């Protein structure tokens, strides 16, 4: 575990960014990135800096080196996450896994606003989309690291991560993982999202411990 000032937050920031990137639609460059092993190596590097325990199950991490042949990964991504009757099998929108969708979306957007961000980015995504949520975690952790380096109070960032994980990705990624198993998702996505779930659980537990909610 990196315990230097801001080091853990920085590693977490990197890990969330890499997980976000792993969940974008796989174009040709993406597959090259996967097959070169750069994705998994960077990800395992970050995770080992966070907690070596997160890198366990090395067999499944190997799936992150396999982009399939020809269009396999694109087709699988579309099947799982993009399109299907009644929606895709495993949508990547948190609001579809519980609660009232619009309220989930709205609250996520208000999290972003509170911390100085807006959704007007490109490519456009909704506030409760997995990649948006992970990008936000990347940002908060990055700011936390910065604050720690500069000796500024990082508490708001940590509490933001604590609540955001609990109310957003941490609340629905476990269900997403169950669904992925049910529909026999390609190992690449199963491994990625199971790995993400483990990180979120680890992170949530730590944040709850370090930033206990006042009664």
């Amino acid at each position, binding site marked *: 575990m990196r315990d230097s000032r801001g*080091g853990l937050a920085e*590693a977490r*920031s*990197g*890990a969330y960014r890499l997980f976000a*990137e792993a969940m974008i*639609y796989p174009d040709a*460059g993406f597959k090259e*990135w996967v097959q070169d092993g*750069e994705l998994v190596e*960077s990800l395992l*590097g*970050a995770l080992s800096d966070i907690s070596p325990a997160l890198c366990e199950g090395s067999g499944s991490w190997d799936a992150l080196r396999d982009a399939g042949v020809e*269009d396999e990964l*694109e*087709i699988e991504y*579309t*099947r799982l996450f*993009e*399109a*299907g*009757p*009644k*929606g895709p099998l495993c949508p990547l929108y948190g609001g*579809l896994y519980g609660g009232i*969708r*619009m309220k989930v*979306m*709205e*609250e996520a*957007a*208000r*999290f972003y*606003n*509170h*911390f*100085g*961000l*807006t*959704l*007007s*980015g490109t*490519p*456009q*995504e909704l*506030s409760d989309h997995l990649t*948006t949520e992970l*990008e936000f975690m*990347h*940002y908060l952790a990055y700011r936390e*690291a910065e*604050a720690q380096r*500069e000796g*500024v109070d990082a*508490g*708001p*960032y940590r*509490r933001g991560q604590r*609540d955001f994980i609990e109310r957003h990705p941490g609340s629905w990624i476990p269900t997403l993982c169950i669904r992925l198993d049910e529909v026999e998702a390609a190992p690449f996505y199963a491994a990625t999202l199971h790995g993400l779930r483990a990180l979120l659980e680890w992170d949530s537990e730590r944040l709850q411990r370090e930033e206990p*909610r006042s009664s």
Partner: protein
Amino acid sequence: MSVTRREFLRYSGLAGVSLSLGHLSVTDVSRASAQGGSGLAPPPVAEFTSWKDLYRERLTWDRVVKGTHQVNCWYQRGCTFNVFVKDGMVMREEQASTYPQTNSSVPDFNPRGCQKGCSYSDRMYDGSRLRHPLKRVGERGEGKWKRVSWEEAMDDIADHVIDTLRKDGPRSVYWDMGGGMTNGAAMVGLVRTIRLLDMTVLDIDSEVGDHHPGAAVTCGKITFSSSADDLFYSDLILIWGGNPAYTQIPNAHFINEARYKGAQVVAITPDLNASGIHADLWAPVNVGSDAALGLAMCHVIVNEGLHDTDFVREQTDLPFLVDPETQRFLRGSDFEAGGADDAFYFFDLESQEIREVSRTTLELGDHRPALEGRYEVETLGGRRTVTPVFELLRAHLANYAPEAAAEITGTPVKLIRSLARKIAKARSATILTQSNFSKFYHGLEMERVQFLVMALCGQFGKKGSGVNGFPMIAIDGNFPVGVAPPPMPDLGPFIVKLWKGMGPKEDETEEMFYLRSMRELHESGNFISSALLFHVHGGLAPLTGASRRWDPELPRDTEEYLAEAFDKGWQLRPPVPKIFFSSGGNILRRVRGYDRLHEGFLPKLDLMVTVDWHMSQTALHSDYVLPAAGWYERDDIVWATPLAPFTQATTKAVEPYAGSKTDWEIHYRLMESIQKRAVARKQVDFFDHAGDIRSLENVFDDFSYRGFVSADDPEPLLKASLYITSNLGGVTWEELKEKGYARHTGLGRSPMNITNATDIEEHETITANTWHTDKKIVWPTLTRRMQFFIDQEFYLELGEQLPIHKDNPAIGGDYPLQMTGGHTRWSIHGSWRDHKLMLDLQRGEPVMYMARGDAAARGVEDGERVRVGNDLGDFEVIVKISAAVHPGQVIVYHAWEPYQFPGKKSHQVTTGTPFNPIQMAGGYYHLQQFMTVGQPGMNDRGTRVEVTKLGAPRAG
């Protein structure tokens, strides 16, 4: 992903992590430099204690704009919403409730909007929302897709189009706009594409069963309606064949308000539906027996002398003389060689002479047409005895004494008599609009009878009275913009040219002129009946052509009638399809017997493209699926109906989500690719349907008005449409956008509007057809009256020259239950059918309503799963036992997607949907087809089925 980006993302504990944002961006520009990991000091952040800090911000937003929904909810359409935007996303909407009161004596229209509209933002961001163009990579329907860029998709589609234009001809390219019609940019996009490339648009009206054949044959038109607030003047409101509590949610309050004023509301329906429970009186009627009920009421009205003699003499053909032997009108051609076939006669009781009826006015002057009696006339064929239609009718009605009719209808005799007297004695009675009867095999007669009942009682033209047909009103400036040649600045002179030299002929009314124009336009063949397309080329003929299988009284086979109709030009023969664009439609959900299209239609297509916002059943079987923008993601104008006579604007609250595009832009991109690819391939010529050579070299330049309108900004089209509109009070696009709606000030120059036949005054409710009743302008029928006697050959052959009841055939086979349907409360067609919020209000999956006794007889309990089947197929569904359902009836409400059923088979696999040849009739002034009118309809009401218990519903 570029190498740079990959380098950037590479994690190295030593190198540190860079800040990399994609979907999010830093709000404060001064902080923007922090993106990319400059190492700047962290920006100040507000204290954050917990998520509750955010909750306190809930009632803040960036802006509020006006929006509405382009969905085809027809009768209940036209609801302006405030749309709340935060951070580039729509957060919620609420009814705007700013509609004016027409005058102080009637209730206002507020609020307008139903639960579907109120949850549209949730639907817009549904998990099923399509984000990027998808190309099929497996077999059709297999569900294997990959993303492609818009350019790749458009170029490939364009290549297919060019090949088909040159090889098979432009009419082989079909567009199905379903219910996605607008009155703005989307419509201009479609119209320009079709006209420039000479392609075919599907006319789906008779296929879906909205074609109101009884209105067409009686009134010569189908689009006419009063305003919903006109109900306040009614003292008798008949809900006959409809269910406005489901289908007119924003209008339904007017019914209740009229009750408070003293109106009596009568529901005539087989089931005690959601509207019936709020009525003062429910008149139960067996499924499909409404014509018998109506004729029995006519029997009472005529026999008790309750009919409005003056109205009948003036407005109907009932005084017209007919030869009872030949069952033909006495005509001018009976008196002299070459005499007019459209000159008719009545016997004048004042002068005691036979007189020719006026072709130009309904005014009777000093004449008093006889309604009874027999008269001798000398004709070219010798001496003949003629009699008024009314006399024939009286004899015909003898078959419908209430006692006899009650055997058919199941309605108590006493109630039949009472209803008849109520209608006859009402100050102002009205029948609410519905498109239910069009969906019966003998629906034409059911509708005709409704008109007959009300005409006998003179219930037209008075405020609060009338039978309401298909309601529609729209701005009249949109179509001209669609057909205008470039460049746009020449639009003004073009409009002058468009209308110059056009107008009614000497003996035509304005209505007749526009209807003739529609018929002439129709002859060009750009509009093809989808019912006929699927019959001829779609594999549906074993259903649509099997009328005699279930209707043994039919003298000839359907194909024989159809061949005659084609040969005589009464119906247009559909061209062979090669490319099918589903742009607003959903044939694999919508079409009765849709399962046959898989084998009969899809294999004939070289290319099938669906434009939709979600993966519909049709999209699932397409080659390309193009993601459409949501209704809050576009600027456009939405048409209206006289029920709520406000044209609505929908405005671009937010950018189209992900890679979706508006219909206008999709047409734009397609035309751009067609020109580009045709030039690149050096294949720019094709022959149009008339054999003339057309060029693709500048087709996109023409489409875009030579660059005057861009892909992502259709506002010039909307501004131009309103600039030349004559019936919206001069409202500009900016004003419409700001307010959200504008009230119509007239009917304007539009074939679809004009048949409302009424003046629209600012502070008056709208009452349809007052041009006929008050101004005495003739009706657009052969006899120029409301016409109840039809001496066209098919009518004579089928014994339907007068309105008649015929039993609903046992369509589907000899099974004991009759399946009916209706528009649902929880969706508008398929648009909300699988929406979680709406499903949560029902049973969560397709459901069939069943009477308690019928369920008990089959051992079926509430919530249990059953198999419903007949000779044609079967499907599985759960049962909701309802005390409101008529014994012998089962109800499956509209628009479930097949993929929502086990085995992906919907109830429409059991619908036989045979054509009734009476609806193919033509060659008779007002029995000629044109868009939405005069084509054989598909039907499903009263399909025979049996129900078998399967057991408990599936988990989940």
